[in-house]
C-alpha cells in the first residue's frame, strides 16, 4: 500500500535492505519501479547504504524513500541526522517490530522515543506520521512526500508489523504528474552556466552551526504551528478518553465502541502526527475530560507527551503491552471499564 501510494506521490527513487515484517514493500518497489520511466530501485548492501543513496537522490531532486523495521531503522539514524542538517526531503518508513535488540517480527510500538526525539545525533526534529489502517497508509504516504518537500525535511512514517503484513481494501489517490511538481532551486544537477552549489553538514565555525540550528528551529516552529493532526472519536460527551495511535488506536476504537454499548461515556483521541504532537487539540479536550487512559504497544513512551501536553492538569493513566503482543478490543474494554468505575466517572 505504501509502495503504490509512494509511486503515485511521485517517488522515483527507492533503496532498501530486506527485513521482516516489511519485505512486502521492498518487493513491491522492486517490481513496480521497473515499469516507471525514471524510476530507480536499489536493493542496497546494507541499511546504511540505502539511506545514503536516498541522501544522494534527494540532493539530485528526486522524491526518494527508504524503508526498514526497527533494528534497520537504528542503522539509518546517522543518515536521517544528515538529511535534517542538509535540509533534504526524504520519506523513511519504519514498520516497527518487537525490541530492543533484534527482538522479534511481531507488531510493536517500541520505537516511539526514537522516532519523535530525533533518533540520530544533533539538534533536530523529524516529522512523524502514524497511520492506523491500510487506507491511511496510502493517504499519509502522499502527505509525507508533500511535507518532506514543503519543509525540506525527512518525514518518518511510523507503522508496525500488523500494518506491514495485513491486507485490506484501499482507494488510492490519483497519481500526480511529477513534471508539475514545484522546481527545487537548491538541487545538485550539474552547474553548467550557473554558479556551483554546495550541500554540506560540516560547519566547523560554531557561529555558522548556530545560525543553521536557529534556522532549523524556526522551521520546526512553523511545522509545529501548521501540521499537528489528531482524530477525535466520540469525545464530545465523554468523561474518559483513550489516547492511542496506529494499530493500538484501531484496537482501542473497537473497545470504545464496546463500552459505549454498555452505556459508558468514553471516547478516543488518536494523534496522527506524533511530532509535532497535537498538544492543543488534547488540551481542548481536557477542558471537559478529566481522565485519560493512554494505551500503547510498549511499556510507556507516548504517555510522556500526553503528560507534557496536559501539564499535570488531568489524570493520566497508562496501559501497555510490549514485546509484539497484540491486545484484543475486549481486553482494552475491560481496562476502560475498571478505570471508569474506580474513578467514579458514572456519577458525573
Amino acid at each position, binding site marked *: 500500500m505504501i509502495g503504490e501510494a509512494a509511486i503515485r506521490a511521485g517517488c522515483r527513487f527507492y533503496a532498501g535492505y530486506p527485513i521482516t515484517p516489511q519485505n512486502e514493500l521492498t518487493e513491491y518497489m522492486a517490481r513496480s519501479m521497473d515499469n516507471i520511466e525514471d524510476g530507480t530501485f536499489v536493493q542496497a548492501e546494507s541499511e546504511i547504504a540505502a539511506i545514503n543513496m536516498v541522501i544522494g537522490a534527494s540532493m539530485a531532486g528526486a522524491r526518494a524513500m527508504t524503508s526498514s523495521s526497527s533494528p534497520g531503522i537504528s542503522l539509518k539514524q546517522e543518515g536521517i541526522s544528515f538529511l535534517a542538517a542538509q535540509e533534504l526531503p526524504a520519506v523513511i518508513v519504519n514498520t516497527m517490530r518487537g525490541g530492543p535488540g533484534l527482538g522479534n517480527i511481531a507488531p510493536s510500538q517500541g520505537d516511539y522515543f526514537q522516532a519523535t526525539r530525533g533518533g540520530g545525533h544533533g539538534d533536530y526534529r523529524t516529522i512523524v506520521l502514524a497511520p492506523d489502517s491500510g487506507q491511511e497508509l496510502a493517504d499519509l504516504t502522499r502527505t509525507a512526500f508533500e511535507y518532506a518537500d514543503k519543509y525540506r525535511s525527512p518525514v518518518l512514517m511510523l507503522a508496525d508489523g*500488523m500494518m506491514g*503484513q495485513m*491486507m485490506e481494501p484501499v482507494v488510492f489517490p490519483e497519481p500526480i504528474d511529477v513534471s508539475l511538481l514545484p522546481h527545487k532551486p537548491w538541487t545538485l544537477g550539474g552547474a553548467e552556466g550557473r554558479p556551483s552549489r554546495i550541500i554540506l553538514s560540516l560547519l566547523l565555525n560554531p557561529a555558522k552551526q548556530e545560525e543553521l540550528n536557529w534556522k532549523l528551529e524556526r522551521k520546526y516552529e512553523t511545522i509545529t504551528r501548521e501540521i499537528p493532526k489528531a482524530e477525535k472519536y466520540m469525545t464530545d460527551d465523554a468523561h474518559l478518553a483513550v489516547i492511542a495511535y496506529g494499530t493500538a488506536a*484501531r484496537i482501542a*476504537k*473497537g473497545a470504545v465502541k464496546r463500552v459505549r454499548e454498555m452505556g459508558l461515556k468514553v471516547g478516543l483521541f488518536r494523534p496522527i502526527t506524533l511530532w509535532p504532537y497535537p498538544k492543543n487539540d488534547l488540551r481542548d479536550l481536557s477542558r471537559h475530560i478529566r481522565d485519560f487512559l493512554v494505551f500503547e504497544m510498549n511499556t510507556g513512551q507516548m504517555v510522556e507527551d500526553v503528560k507534557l501536553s496536559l501539564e499535570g492538569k488531568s489524570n493520566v493513566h497508562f496501559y501497555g503491552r510490549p514485546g509484539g503482543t497484540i491486545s*484484543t478490543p475486549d481486553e482494552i474494554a475491560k481496562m476502560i471499564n475498571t478505570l471508569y468505575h474506580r474513578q467514579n466517572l458514572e456519577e458525573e
Partner: protein
Amino acid sequence: MKKTVFAGFGGQGVLMMGYAFAMAVMNDGKHITYLPAYGAEMRGGTANCTVAVSDEEIFSPVASAPDYAVILSNPSLIKYESMINNGGTVFINSSLVTKEVSRDDIHIVKVPAGDMARKLRNERISNMIMLGAFVSGSQLTSMESILDALAEITKGKKATLMKSNKKGLDAGAEYVLQGV
C-alpha cells in the same frame, strides 16, 4: 462480523485459501482484513491467516475467537481448537489431521481432502477442496465470487490452473452438500 482462521504448514496453500476468500468478500462489497502469519521457512513451518468479514469497520484483524477455522494439520488443530467461538465450525482435512476434536459445542466438518485430491489425480488441489467445502458450509460468500477472485489472482498463469482449481472447489462444495 465473522472471523475465519486458515491454518496448516507452509506449502499447503493455506495463505492462498485465505487470500482468495478475502478477495472474494472484498469484491462482494464487505469490509475485510487479511492477516497472514508464517514462519521464516519456505516449506514445513507453521502458516496461518485470519480473514475478518464485516458490514462495518473492522477494529481488530486478529482472531481471538474465530467463528470458522479451516485446519490442515495436527498442530493447527491443537492451537486453534480451544479458541473457536461457541457454535463455531471447524473444517478439517481428515486425510492429514488424525487428532480428534474434544469440544462438543462446535460443529465439525471433516473433509478427506487429501484422498479426494489424489482421486482427482492432483494432490496440489487439496487446499481448493477445503476452500470449496468452507465456502459451501459457511455461506460467507458465493462460489462465483471465489472463482472470480481466483481468476484475478492467477491472471497471466496457465489456464489449466484455473480448471484444476475449479475441479477442487466443486468437489469440496459437493462433499459438504451431500453430507448435510
